[in-house]
């Protein structure tokens, strides 16, 4: 069996008293798009930056393409491409200049004209970095991550802060990388991004991986239930809601009652009957088919973006 292209074992990283990464272990196979899904502060960026050779772990080992990111220096950097959580370039650097400059640092160089075309930056080739929109800057960051035809691409929150239209454009680009069988390690706190783009996902919280699997496996593990979120006029007895017909699990998140239903129609009927009998009222009701968000809530009791 081939060695995993990324291998992480027992990784720890602290910043003063804050333990950002607490014993993280995972492996990524060649050609896989692997996602680290978790809320802000979960330790995703610290992990990726250790793998990029930008940070030193306190303990544990990390290997990318068989190399130690911290100690292999230039040889290691020749093999990876990366988009940082926030990329900055000099204001008056032009788009084509940036690509040519970064390409010049590598032995294996991609055709920068082709990259401009692929990332729809041809018309902006002579534009200053400061004059680009957020989406254009992120497309340039992605293009720069590919100037050396890397074996492994690290994408740290590549769509954070972008509007939905631009986010979809970035998704298309990552899907293209997936079709090209590039190994991609992606961090995100967007559920739809992990579900749509990743072959496998590790759910990360408080510096630890709490579950790993394909998006389908993870969703199936959440008992395949429909999530029904309701707000009520008056507080309700939790035990009563938990015992409703069709409800398999229950929890509260602030003023929201979350019912997990294996048979959603029955659960709704019994809920309405219960509220009538209790002289209570429904203020709002939302239904969700099983998603990674459910898995996260099930595992942590919190939403991803709380």
């Amino acid at each position, binding site marked *: 069996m081939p060695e995993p292209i990324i291998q992480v074992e027992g990784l720890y990283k602290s910043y003063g008293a804050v333990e950002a990464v607490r014993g993280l272990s995972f492996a990524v196979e060649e050609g896989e798009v692997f996602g680290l899904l978790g809320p802000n502060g979960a330790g995703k960026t610290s992990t990726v930056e250790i793998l*990029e050779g*930008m940070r030193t772990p306190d303990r544990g080992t990390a290997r990318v393409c068989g190399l130690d990111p911290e100690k292999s*220096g*230039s040889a290691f*950097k*020749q093999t*990876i491409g*990366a988009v*940082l959580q*926030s*990329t*900055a*370039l*000099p204001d*008056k*650097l032009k788009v084509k*200049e940036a690509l040519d*400059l*970064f390409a*010049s*640092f*590598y*032995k294996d160089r991609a055709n920068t004209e082709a990259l401009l075309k692929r990332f729809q930056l041809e018309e902006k080739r002579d534009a200053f970095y400061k004059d680009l929109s957020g989406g254009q800057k992120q497309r340039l960051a992605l293009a*720069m991550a590919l100037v050396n035809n890397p074996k492994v691409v690290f994408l740290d929150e590549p769509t954070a802060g972008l509007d939905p239209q631009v986010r979809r454009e970035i998704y298309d680009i990552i899907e293209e990388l997936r079709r090209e069988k590039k190994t991609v390690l992606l961090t995100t706190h967007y559920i739809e991004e992990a579900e749509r783009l990743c072959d496998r996902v590790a759910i990360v919280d408080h510096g630890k991986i709490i579950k790993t699997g394909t998006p389908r496996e993870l969703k199936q593990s959440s008992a395949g239930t429909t999530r029904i979120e309701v707000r009520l006029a008056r507080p309700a007895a939790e035990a009563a809601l938990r015992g409703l017909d069709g409800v398999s699990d229950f929890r509260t998140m602030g003023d929201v009652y979350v019912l997990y239903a294996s048979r959603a129609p029955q659960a709704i009927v019994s809920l309405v009957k219960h509220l009538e009998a209790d002289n209570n009222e429904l203020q709002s009701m939302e239904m969700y088919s099983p998603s990674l968000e459910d898995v996260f809530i099930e595992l942590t009791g919190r939403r991803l973006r709380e």
Partner: protein
Amino acid sequence: MASNPVSNTWSLTKIRIRLAMRNKMFLFFSLLMPLIFLFLFVMLWGKGSPMKINFILGGVLTLTVMGGFWGLSVQLVSFREQGILRRFRLAPLGSGPMLASSIVANFILVVPFVFFEMVVAKFILHMAVWGNVPAIFFLVMVGSATFSAFGLVVASVTNTMQETQIINQLIWMVFLFLSGATIPLAVFPDWIKRITLFSPATYLAVGLQSAATDQVVGAEFVTEAVALVLGLLVAFEISRRIFRWEPEAKVPTSAKVWVLAALIPFVIFGAYENYSGKMLKRVGTMMSFIDRPSGAAAAKPAPDSQPDR
């Protein structure tokens, strides 16, 4: 073509030159300001002997060359603060090419400015002679590299732009007024003259003033050149060792000790010059030479030189 430190340095150098040429502030401070100083100083102190214009030009060239000290440190700190250096850190680059490109770019940018100032001094201000041109360009080359390296040391030991500006202002004041570049050393009391011998700027200013007035004396020129080259090597190595890519990386205490090490060559040369008295004697000789109305004739004027005073 394989990626290597030399080609990486050259790629960065080309970009840094382009970025500098797109920066109006840089053009103002590097090109226009020295010219303003040149005209101002000539108006104030240039009367009496055509060689005075040569002497003034030596000081103005010193200011032009030392300018790299400012621009580079501020740019590097701003790149670090904005997270630009982090993106470069991902590439197979060491701190060496990053720092060396600053120095090479500064040198390439300074040479045409120096040439332009010499042309203005010669044809508009009617400078007496061209001076010792090879010596001028040698000192420009070494001086621009040395003062750029000092700028990089400051950038490496400061955390914010504000800190950089304060430290730069303090050092710049010393370079400006205690070197002979703006106020001739000869006018200072003896104890101040002796202090100036510990400043790197003095070696550059006296060297360029000697070269511009064609008063270069071989052995003393070597002293100035060696002091500047040693300063360059020590400052470059120190800035390379304490270079920081990350905005949040704070300066280690040991780095501050390293900064003091950058001054060691000038402490040694300052002690030597204080002991031998050669440099101060030469400054005195140069002043009496340029004050002579016939100074132009005593020098080796270029054939087309037509002083009109």
